[in-house]
């Protein structure tokens, strides 16, 4: 293996400045998953991204918690060039995904009652 780090340009993946589609999020998730499962570190670069919605982040990042722990992600996944005003959105998506995958059934029961 010649590289130990895989860089994903979100601008390139979504073909523009807007990360708004679930399909694009799913595509990014698969790339991250493929790299992490091959013991590569991953850098997600959000340079030039001006619009992000939760549907994209749930698919691209939230979904990672179905397979990886926080520790694994902290060690192996790096997020670059996120605009300051978008940071809370990432935090919300991560917080929700963690709760969701810690105990999916319990979480649903919790929110349904």
């Amino acid at each position, binding site marked *: 293996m010649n590289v130990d780090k895989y860089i994903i340009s979100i601008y390139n993946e979504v073909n523009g400045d807007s990360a708004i589609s679930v399909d694009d999020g799913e595509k990014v998730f698969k790339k991250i998953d493929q790299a992490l499962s091959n013991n590569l570190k991953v850098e997600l670069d959000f340079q030039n991204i001006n*619009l992000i919605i939760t549907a994209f982040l749930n698919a691209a990042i939230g979904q990672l918690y179905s397979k990886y722990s926080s520790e694994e992600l902290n060690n192996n996944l790096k997020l670059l060039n996120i605009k*300051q005003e978008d940071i809370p959105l990432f*935090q919300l998506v991560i917080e929700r995904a963690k709760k969701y995958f810690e105990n999916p059934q319990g979480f649903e029961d919790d929110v349904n009652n």
Partner: protein
Amino acid sequence: MIVIKIPPKVCSDYEGFSFLVKLINYCNKLYFNEIILDFEANTWFEANLTAVLGAILDKTRNNINNVKIINLTNRVEESLRKNNFLSSYGFDTMPDKHDTTIKYRRNKIEEDRLIKEFLDVELISKQDFPKLSAALRKEIIKSIFEIYSNAVIHGNCEFIYSCGQYYPSKTPPRLDFTIVDMGNTIKKNVNDFLKANQNGVDTILGTEAINWAVSGNNTTKPKENNIPGGLGLKLIKEFISLNKGKIQIVSADGYWEMNKDKKNETKSFEEEFPGTIVNIEFNLDDKDFYYLKSETIEDIIF
């Protein structure tokens, strides 16, 4: 030939949506007919609602009916020509000199990038459109896309209809943007998700289902797809209440509204709308910035 009289005023309120729910239920029963929409008595039709009318009339035309629109007053005709709605009904388009419309569109669900480019153009380049702060414009586009994305994920339908109208003479000036899908209703999705269907009857009412869907982090996304959800509407509600705008949702027999005083109101219709309508009213006289609250904005920790 069947003539349907349009009422004097059709606004983005419970009465306006009630009329549209009745209209689709009436039209749904018609096949192989000549249907005339007679606007003679109508002096006010809020142009953003052409997103709903367009969805209804498309469905009606698909049932092998011809649809004609007649007797429009000058004012209504102008506004519906300017937003291109009437282009499919034998009228020419008309330039929007005062930049008050966000054009009527029917998009396939995969065209989200095109819509983003379209919205950018519609919200930035118009000279007479109010100068929105970058933060407000971004939040408006984000809200529209969260709703659009909800329709794509949950509606399971072919097209999404949208239209926006800027009302400069209202106090405060407002932008209404309406998004419609004719797919699964919120009532059906929530009843299926919570397994509340008993003997073929959905036991959760339309209003209760919408209330559930807009509360907390609830989502009807199937768990097996492993993608968490339920944040989009929550974020829009937070933004709209700061912005002192309004959100209205119509789905099946349920009507839900959150108004500028953050009060929720629910009502039922006698019949069901076979899809979901979301209308968001943005207050454009708003100089604040809308960054989400965050305790730490230094770093993102997984």
